[in-house]
Every structure is written in C-alpha cells, then in structure tokens.
C-alpha cells in the first residue's frame, strides 16, 4: 500500500498562504468573521504558523510554517477517539468520519499540533456563496470534529481514472489542493513507501526534519529546513 506524505521545503516556501485558501476552497470550509476568529473558531485545515526565533533580531532565525494535518503514523488523536470516528487508513491517511463523531473533542485536545477543528455551529454560507461548494466533499454538520483528509476525494478520483484506463496510478496524479496550488513547488507530495519517489528522497535528505519529532508521532508531513 502507498504511504502518502509530503515534504514542505521551507527554503522554497514564501509563506504566501496560497495553500491555506486553496484548502478552504477545496474542502468547503465555511467563511468566518472577526468574532469567530477572535474566539478561535475560524477553520484553516492548512494553517500558516509563525515561529519566533530564539535570540535577538536581526540575528534570530524565524520560521513561517505551513501546517496541515501531519497524518502521523502514530497519531495521538486516533488512540483517544472513543467511537473510532478517526482512524489511520491503509494508505496512512488519518481520516475523520463526520457521521460517527460524537463531538467529545478528545482528539482535538490530544493532537499536539492543534490540527483538528470543531464545528462550533452549523456552518453557513450567506446566499449565494454556497454555490461554490465542492460536491466531492461533504459539508460538516455542527458538533463534529473535522480535519485535513489529504484531499482523499482526489485520491479516489485518481484511482477511478487509473482503473478506467486499466493502468496503475501515475506519480503526481493525486495531490492535495494545497500542493497543487503552491506557487513555489515547496510542497512535494507522493508515496513515502516508494524509495524512488521524489518525496521520499527529499524526506531522507539532510535538511529533513519532523515537527515535534521527540513526541514520536512519526508525522508524514516532513519539513525541509532552510539552508544547505
């Protein structure tokens, strides 16, 4: 089975946040306003996180880090779900079944990356904004936890195409919206289990590091630090 993952090259990334809105558009994330944002109720499955560097500026190294769900191989969120609404599937994608979730928010508190989101209210799109909703992706009802699915629907579409043409899936045929929109090519997506793939070469390069690696969550989103 493929093990989908991505690398994010911080040397290429310019923190333009294109991935953030691309994700929002692809995955039907509802618009939020000033009040929602101040209460921590905006939805950004892909989020740009500024890390303040150590030491004094101008010497301090600062990082602007795009953070999707990291799809850990040992996901702390999956362990704690009491109903199995979140799970790690055979492709290594950490999925969320919105129709089973009871909204206890245990996974949200267990995730060390704060990469999970809760629908505090019924998401709404003032008329006619709802027209842009992507029919491949459900709109999550209120009261459930939602998260990045690595655009799993795109994986399925790619598989369908491959099957229809009776061939194997080609590299690059499936990539999430964030990766596809990235202007700089900072994000490389692919099969980490295939040593020949670009992503797995990058993931094993000298610059590769994992976010909060010491927690042992084994994320499949791997960052490449700046510099040589």
């Amino acid at each position, binding site marked *: 089975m493929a093990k989908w993952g991505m690398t994010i090259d911080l040397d290429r990334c310019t923190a333009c946040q294109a991935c953030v809105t691309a994700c929002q558009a692809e995955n039907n994330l509802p618009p939020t306003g000033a009040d929602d944002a101040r209460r921590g109720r905006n939805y950004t499955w892909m989020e740009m996180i500024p890390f303040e560097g150590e030491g004094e500026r101008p010497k301090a190294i600062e990082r602007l880090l795009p953070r999707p769900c990291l799809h850990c191989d040992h996901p702390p969120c999956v362990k704690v779900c009491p109903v199995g609404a979140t799970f790690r599937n055979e492709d290594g994608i950490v999925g969320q079944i919105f129709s089973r979730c009871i909204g206890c928010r245990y996974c*949200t508190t267990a995730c060390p990356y704060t990469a999970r989101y809760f629908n505090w209210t019924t998401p709404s799109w003032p008329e006619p904004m709802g027209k842009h909703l992507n029919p491949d992706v459900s709109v999550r009802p209120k009261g459930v936890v939602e998260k990045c699915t690595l655009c799993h629907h795109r994986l399925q579409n790619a598989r369908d195409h491959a099957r229809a043409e009776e061939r194997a899936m080609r590299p690059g045929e499936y990539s999430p919206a964030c990766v596809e929109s990235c202007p700089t090519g900072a994000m490389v997506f692919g099969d980490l289990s295939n040593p020949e793939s670009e992503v797995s070469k990058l993931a094993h390069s000298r610059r590769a590091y994992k976010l909060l690696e010491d927690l042992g969550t084994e994320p499949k989103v791997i960052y490449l630090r700046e510099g040589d």
Partner: protein
Amino acid sequence: MSVATKKPSPPPLTEDAILLEPILHTGPKFYITVAVLLSVIGLGVYAYTVQYREGLGVTGLGRPVYWGFYITNFVFFIGISHAGTLISAILRIVGAEWRRTITRSAEVITVMVILFGVGNILVDLGRPDRMLNVIKHAKFGSPLLWDVCSITVYLTMSTTYLYLPLIPDIAILRDHTNKRRWFYRLLALGWTGTPRQHRILDILISVMAIIVIPVAVSVHTVVSFVFAMTIQPMWHSAIFGPYFVVGAIFSGIAALICAMALIRWVYGLGEYLKDIHFNNLGLLLLVMCFAWFYFTASEFLTTFYGSEPTHMTIFWLKFTGPFAPHFWTMVVTCFFIPVTILAFKRTRTILGTVIASLSITVGMYLERFIIVVPSLSQPRLPHAEDIVYTPTWVEWSILAACFAAFTLLYVLFTKLFPIVSIWEVQEGREKSVAEVTERLKSYLPKSQPAPARPEPVGASK
C-alpha cells in the same frame, strides 16, 4: 390518599421520631426552596436547549481551548462523588461507630452527584444525539471509554450501596407512616427485620463496602487518565491517578461536611450530627489537606525541576500568567485556610469545619479548572495569545443548574427517606455499646489479677 385514611393509623415511632419529621411534614420553606431551585434549573435547561439548537458555539470554547467548564464540572462532580461511597465504606470497614449517623448523607451525595458528572460530559458533546455511538462503536483504547465503564459500574454499585442500608428504614417508613405506603412497600422488599434478613443484609453491605472501594479509586484514576494519557504538557503525568483520587476524597469530605451542616441546620438534627462528627471529619479533612498539598507540590516541583520548555510554558501560565489568580486562590483556599482552621481544636468547630469545607469546595473547583484549561490554552505549536477562554452565560447557567439540581435531588431524597439511618442508630444503641466494649477489650491486654509476686529467692538465702 383517601384510601389511606381508612387504614388503621400505624403506630408512631417513639424514639428517633425527629428523623421522620421531614418526610411526614412539609412546610412552606420547602416549597420556596424547591421553587428557587427549580427556577435555577429552568435557566440551565433553557441554556442547554439554546446550546442544543445552536451548537457549542454558544459557549466560550474555541480553538485551542476545546474543553472548559463542562469538563471541569465533570471532574469536579466525579470528585465530589467520592464523598459518599468511599468514606462510608472505609468507615464501615474499620468499624468506626461514629459513622452511623453520617453514612447515609454521604452515600446520597455520591449517587446524586455522579449523575451530574456524567451529565456534564453529555452536555459537552457536540452531538449528544449520537452518544450511544460510545456503545455501538466502542473503542476500548480510548480512556474516555474506560471512564464510561468505570463510571457505569460505580454508579450501579453506589446506588446499590445506598439502597441496601436503606431497606430497613424503608420498612420503618412503611410500618410507621401513612404516606406513599405502596411506594415504601415496593422498595422495602418485604423487610421484616428477622435475624436472617439482618444477617443477609450485613453480609451484603460488607461485601459491597469492600468492592466499592477499589471501584471508587479506579473511577477517579480513570478520570485522571483522560488527561494523563495524552501527551499534552502538564497533563501527561504519572501521579495524576493518585493525585485525582486524593483530590476527590478531599473535595468529597468537604462536600459531605457542607451537606451535613445543612441537614443539621434545616432539620434540627443537632442530636444526631454532633460536634464529634464534624471534629472527626475535620481531622480527616486535615489529613487529606496535607495529602493534597503533597501531591500538588510534587507535581509542580517535578515540572519545575525538569523545566521542559513546553511544560514550563503551562507552569508559568499558572504561576504568574493569566491563570495565576485562579492558581493562588486555589492554594489559599485548598491549603492555607483549611489548615489554619482545622489544625486547632478551638477552631475545629462545626462552623470552622464548614468554613474550611466551603473554602475547599471552591478551591477544588478552581483546581479542576486550572488542570483542564491552561494546558489547552498554550498548545505546543505557537498560537495566538489573545484567544482567552471566558465561559458564557450558557456555561454559567448550566453550572448553576447542576448545583441547583443536585441540591433539589438531595432535598427530595430527604423528603422521601430518612437522611440519618434510623435502624443503624437504633442498632448502635441496642447492640453496639456492648459490642464496642467487647471489641475494645479485645484490643487491650487482658486485665488479670496481678500474679503473685514470686518469692525473692535470693532473699531467703
């Protein structure tokens, strides 16, 4: 009720009649109390309907503070619930005779308060309509499911444990009062007080008392696991289990003292709930006070000494940051105030213990709060600082309603059943004095006539 009047009037209870007073007579004060409590509950119910309709957006929760008042309530109430069963079981097992008048009021707290503990979890769910998924799709790897199991067992056991010693008293009610006879007859299970029945009851109570202790300990341990099993800073701690249990017993005793004082005052039971009870419980509280402080201190010292950055962030949030007021209030109300009061015999009066207990109740609520919220408010990845959790009116109303509903259920219980165990008091009077004398004697070296002094052998020589 007209049917009941035709029946021959039962013989009034001569001794301990005051214990049946609340059941037999209801004054306007009762109705006023109930009305007040009901209106508070009504507010809470309304708040919940709003939340149910609109979603949890009506609370002050947000990302990253996903848990707030409701989870705090849950931990707090489950903690309080240790008042009853655990204390009463321990006292029973060690045969503390002074327990006889207080066990009932303690056990009632347990049963009533667990309901609110569980209830708060349900209130906290985003999708209460799917709560049965916990059974349908149970994943036993989740500490929350451990909670579900242990709390269910605990609730069942404590209810049984409350009910068993209640049976003889129900029989007394059935025999000596006119009210709701069908009800008491049903619940008395044909108790007539034969020696065989007494023997069976004694065995059952003893067995339950023994079983309920590990269950109670497990419950709060498991509650702590909900936090400790995650890798979040200042949650992921091995002493959380015992720490929570100690805190639970601590707050439980405090709640018990408050309840007892209230009953004593409202129903004039000064003869039954005496200074000595408060004094003894006060001492127990004092011990728990130190135990709690010990755990708190070791928890924070370990964190501080290890000074892992992520943990220290939370540490400073509590010590000097936005949660400092909560933290220091907690330290004062949970330790300094009660110790000052309870350490001295002169202040360990009824009033003194009640003040100490109220202070502890507040302090322990804060303790639960600063366990739950600060760890969430500064997650490992940097986060906007200005997202502060402030509970909304919905959460406050539901909290108030929980307290009100608890009080109401407690009051209603006292209106249906004697809050002081009549038969145990009677039994104490009839048998225990002799028994205790006997038992006491068994502890002590036998008083024998002084052996004849041996002749100083050498003297003759």
